[in-house]
């Protein structure tokens, strides 16, 4: 089973999902992220799904789950790069992904994370 690599950039964790995820891999990612947030004290998590052509309810739940866990661990999560076809399908599916922040691309996502940082008075770049 493959593990999705988690990159660290300052106080932010970056995850790029580029493969069709098996259920197990998704669950593993959730666990890996939770422990890494705790270990590194990261304040922001950016998940790039621009290569994901399919987001079903399982993956949707995973994203919402990561977002929730991160929040409890005092980190903000942003999901970026959702493809139009995926957005349309998710709306039809009825998945609202409540509580998950989204941005159009990595640049905007990082911008959002830094802004969230400033609000709480910490500097994400340090």
């Amino acid at each position, binding site marked *: 089973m493959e593990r999705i690599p988690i990159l660290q950039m300052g106080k932010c964790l970056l995850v790029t999902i580029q493969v*069709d995820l*098996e*259920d197990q891999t998704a669950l593993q990612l959730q666990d890996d992220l939770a422990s890494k947030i705790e270990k590194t004290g990261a304040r922001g998590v950016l998940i790039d799904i621009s290569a994901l052509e*399919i987001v*079903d*309810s399982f993956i949707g*739940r995973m994203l919402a789950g990561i977002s929730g866990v991160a929040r409890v661990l005092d980190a903000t999560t942003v999901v970026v790069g959702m493809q139009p*076809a995926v957005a349309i*399908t998710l709306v039809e599916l*009825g998945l609202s992904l409540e509580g998950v922040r989204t941005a159009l691309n990595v640049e905007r996502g990082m911008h959002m994370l830094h802004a969230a940082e400033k609000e709480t008075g910490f500097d994400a770049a340090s």
Partner: protein
Amino acid sequence: MSLATEQDIVMSRQTVRKLTHELKFSLVDQTKMVTAASELSRNTVVYGGGGEMRWQVVANGTKTGLRLAFEDRGPGIPNLDLALTDGWTSGKGLGMGLSGSKRLVNEFEIRSAPGEGTCVTITRWK
């Protein structure tokens, strides 16, 4: 194809992707069909104890379509009406699988009874 393991869920997505692509469905329609297949395959593997997915190209006058059937010999669904409402779940899910999939396709048929397994048939027209 048989649906027994998690990898099969991924395989079913890839198979349906290939089928809808060859039938020249629009990208959004492809995505909707593959996502529906993912939901139903997962149901078959996780709740139905394994089963199979069958596919068939169908025609109605000048329209072409793809019909998929997901069948298992599992415990069956005791209350179909309830299962088809948003938010109902028997497991850990959000309960979007059935009702959500229904919205992603043009035709949706389900046969299930306790002890008799479940068969869901979905059709999408081009």
